[in-house]
């Protein structure tokens, strides 16, 4: 399918709420005081505005991430690494059965521009969708004053290891990242690095827990260590993952502290499969044929191991690779 190159267009501003509505291809986006409304030629859908904005801002920051990002069971995006699908009901059994589903493909930069435009107009000062709900204001109500600072932040991608020369810095007081309240009970020290003369800068170690504890964003990973295409991402998780992620490849979670409850469903139909509760030290694969959503009652630390090999999504989609990672023999 050819990508639609038409860019986002404003369709009017509500005189009461002050929010602008937009059209992108066949999709229309409107917000009121409580909800985002998404409509397309065959249907419409309503999403609570906090959830919508938390999902949209992360989708921008992640570069549409790996595979499917469901804002909820109905609406979302699929990353094809250059183009992005916008879909509604395309992975819901009921919508599919009734023929109400809709999907359009755009160049990634067109969707990025659209989501940035909508977010900028619909987010008021005092509300930061990247923060935990207890740490930010409310998104509800009419338009007040647009934020002027960066909406997207926190995705610091190391190409080898965080903190090495030329790489993103480890978070610290100096970078404006104090220890989060939820990790104030931990003691943080530094690894001792003793280099022999002539080898300065060749040995390296960081306090990864300290780095995570200073994150001012939630559910927003940073690459800390990369070997080949194996990417170690770490992130601080509090409240709920504001999207449902359906990966186009296998990925792995290592719970570093506390616990996260994961709801698992079939990726294509949304049919629930059950729950995984991960506690400190637990390791679990997220197969390529599921969608998952996490709930973290207390702010926790999570390590995610991804395989960033280019083209992997096509090998899983074609069936060349199994949608689960381990061969038990």
């Amino acid at each position, binding site marked *: 399918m050819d990508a639609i190159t038409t860019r986002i267009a404003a369709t009017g501003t509500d005189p009461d709420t002050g929010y602008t509505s937009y059209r992108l291809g066949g999709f229309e986006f409107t917000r009121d005081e409580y909800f985002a409304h998404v409509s397309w030629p065959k249907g419409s859908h309503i999403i609570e505005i906090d959830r919508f904005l938390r999902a949209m801002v992360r989708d921008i920051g992640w570069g549409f991430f790996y595979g499917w990002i469901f804002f909820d069971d109905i609406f979302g995006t699929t990353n094809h690494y250059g183009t992005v699908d916008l879909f509604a009901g395309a992975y819901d059994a009921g919508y599919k059965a009734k023929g109400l589903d809709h999907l359009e493909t755009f160049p990634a930069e067109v969707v990025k521009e659209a989501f940035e435009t909508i977010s900028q107009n619909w987010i008021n000062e005092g509300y930061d969708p990247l923060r935990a709900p207890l740490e930010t204001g409310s998104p509800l109500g009419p338009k007040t004053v647009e934020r002027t600072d960066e909406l997207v932040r926190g995705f610091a991608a190391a190409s080898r*290891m965080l903190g090495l020369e030329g790489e993103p810095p480890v978070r610290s007081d100096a970078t404006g990242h104090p220890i989060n309240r939820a990790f*104030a*009970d931990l003691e943080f020290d530094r690894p001792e690095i003793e280099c*022999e003369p002539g080898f300065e800068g*060749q040995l390296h170690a*960081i306090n990864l827990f300290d780095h995570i504890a200073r994150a001012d964003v939630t559910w927003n990973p940073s690459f800390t260590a990369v070997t080949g295409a194996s990417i170690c991402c770490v992130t601080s998780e509090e409240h709920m993952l504001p999207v449902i992620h359906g990966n186009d490849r296998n990925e792995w979670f290592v719970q570093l502290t506390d616990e996260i409850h994961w709801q698992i469903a079939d990726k294509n139909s949304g049919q629930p499969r059950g729950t995984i509760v991960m506690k400190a*030290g637990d390791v679990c*694969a997220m197969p390529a044929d599921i969608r998952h959503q996490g709930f973290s009652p*207390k702010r926790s630390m999570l390590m995610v191991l991804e395989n960033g090999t280019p083209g992997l999504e096509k090998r899983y989609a074609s069936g060349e690779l199994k949608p689960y990672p*381990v061969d038990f023999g």
Partner: protein
Amino acid sequence: MAYNTKVGSLDAYEKGSIELADDLRKYAFSNIYEVAGKSAPFERVAVVQNLEYVAETVRIEGDSPWYAAPHDEFALVMDGEVTFRFVKLADDQVPGHEGGAVRLGGVPNGPNMGRVTARRGHQVLLPKGAAYQMSAAKPAVAIVQTRDGPETVKRWSEICTLA
């Protein structure tokens, strides 16, 4: 409100649960402290497999053999205190196999690069071009991000929750 962050250790950990209407082998659910608790020192047991990439759980107790890999590896200490010693390898000493750590026959004869002492939460670069040895006076646990290699031990049926 005061928070109580829960971490695990070899002596005290609580494994979570997996309740799915699905084949649990697809999820390979394990716990690094449980794995390390049942491992011999310096067994490098795969707990993550992503095609050619793995993460290994290592129980560190005493002095390990010397290892080297043809690429960077990374160790995250999850319990105890570990000292990593490094020796620079000459170009013709760097392992040429496809990936993963290989055990060296003895102490490499290159120059001493130094050492890193790391505790829970510390992530350590095990750089390409260097041999390394891990040491701990008391049992410690680390996760090593690397490639599937000759030292990688796989016993998925033993470590994973399957029912």
